[in-house]
């Protein structure tokens, strides 16, 4: 492909101007929430009459908010471990396997992507209710793992395809065991993809609200508590929490870009 962008034509300038507006649209809500979260007023409004940290303090001083946050962190932590582990195993199986039914396994691995979250939420809620295990945080973690698994399989599968199996065979020829060859030769090359997978699994669980709404019961997660507060339109504490979440997303994005295999999942 020819490098160098060439002379900017008026047409291209017009398209770039349109693109700038689109990017502004994408950033607008994130930019607006920043001053609002620092408001000194009792109500939501723009522009804020003055600035203070009172709503951040309100968040940190409220045991209910903190409990919801810790619950979400625990769930997201469990999901990160489970989804990365299971997804990596499944990616290995699909990419390296030569067994019949491999295509079906591949279909099953990405099927959760094709099922709308509301449908899966109702489905898993029905099952957990029948088994009388609805309302536990562990249930949310399991459902979130299903939700995150396809992303891990896609990222790990794509990375695994770039590693030549001959390397493993060479290591085995030199006396390494099969597992040893995978752990010492292949896995280190997959580290960026593993990191990306883990971050994506974490953030997808930490932000998820629909499954948590159905399965949580009294065990309210952070997004569920935010959802309830937004519906009731109470004070701006939720703006402070939202700002903290955007900061978290920015950190995760930066880390994934630095250590991961690229933040893009699709295509």
């Amino acid at each position, binding site marked *: 492909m020819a490098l160098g962008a060439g002379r900017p034509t008026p047409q291209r300038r017009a398209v770039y101007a349109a*693109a700038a507006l689109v990017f502004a*649209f994408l950033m607008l809500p*994130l930019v607006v929430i920043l001053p609002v979260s620092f408001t000194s007023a009792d109500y939501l409004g723009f522009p804020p009459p003055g600035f203070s940290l009172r709503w951040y303090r309100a968040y940190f001083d409220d045991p209910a908010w903190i409990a919801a946050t810790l619950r979400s962190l625990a769930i997201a932590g469990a999901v990160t471990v489970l989804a990365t582990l299971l997804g990596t195993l499944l990616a290995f199986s699909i990419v390296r396997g030569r067994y019949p039914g491999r295509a079906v396994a591949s279909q099953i691995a990405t099927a959760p992507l094709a099922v709308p979250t509301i449908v899966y939420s109702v489905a898993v809620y029905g099952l957990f209710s029948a088994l009388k295990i609805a309302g536990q945080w562990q249930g949310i973690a399991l459902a979130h793992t299903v939700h995150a698994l396809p992303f891990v399989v896609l990222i790990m599968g794509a990375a695994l395809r770039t590693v030549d199996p001959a390397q493993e065979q060479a290591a085995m020829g030199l006396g390494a065991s099969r597992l040893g060859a995978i752990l010492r030769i292949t896995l280190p090359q997959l580290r960026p993809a593993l990191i990306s997978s883990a971050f994506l699994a974490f953030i997808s669980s930490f932000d998820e609200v629909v499954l948590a709404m159905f399965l949580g019961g009294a065990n309210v997660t952070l997004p569920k508590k935010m959802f309830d507060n937004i519906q009731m339109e109470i004070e701006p504490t939720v703006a402070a929490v939202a700002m903290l979440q955007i900061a978290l997303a920015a950190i995760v994005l930066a880390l994934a870009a630095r250590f991961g295999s690229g933040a893009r999942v699709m295509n």
Partner: protein
Amino acid sequence: MSARRQGWGPLAAGALPLAFLGVLFLYPVARLLLLSVEDGSLRAFERAAADALYLGVLLETLKLSLIVAAICLVLAYPAAYFLATASRGWAALGFACLLLPFWSSILVRTYAWTIVLGRNGVVNRLLLETGLIAEPLALLNNEAGVVVGMVHVLLPYMVFPIYAVMLRIDRDLAAAASGLGASPWRVFTRIYFPLTLPGAFAGSVLVFVIALGFFVTPAILGGGRVVTIGLLIEDQVRRFLDWPFAAALAALLLAAAFLIQGTFQRVLRGETRWH
């Protein structure tokens, strides 16, 4: 490659995650679908089709998804073009503007839109103060608000596939066409645009299908006045405990999603394959 030497290892590695998905994904979804025909009749489906109210919700959901996909397509095109053609630094900035919202939670972004679009929100304040309007516009608790929120959430899903296709377009093609005397407009309509269609197509299908099942954004920005099939399903389960009817609605939603994806996957084979 020595397939035989791979042995049963890969199959064994896949057994645990596949069992996990079988128990926690395939089984509950199949169980739900069976609930819709629990008493051996299609009564629940008949109810969905016969009642004008429910039919209206289905049509509203389809219409909303179509509008959202169309707007996303229009907005994604220049953004993807910028990302694919701008210099490295500018493209990185563009990606930051795309990925930061993408990685932020849907809930946070939807909530932020209530601040932007509200009666005393940013947009209304701006328009009132510049004298463009005399009365605040109703941008929230209606379809307009839901569309804005959904477009914001789904836009990246449209940009990524179009961007991916644009990256692969050989720039010498356009150079050759203009070298042979084609106007920039002609180069665009005859060369560039047709080559980007697979990406636009893939993105549109993806956005449309995800939009069909949306829940959080219509719930918050619709203010109860925009009822989508997702909201209806939730209502039937949690308020009315009508499992067969909720299951029938879920089956309809799932069938629509699969039908659209299946149909277009055939058309797009080779363009959007993940495996």
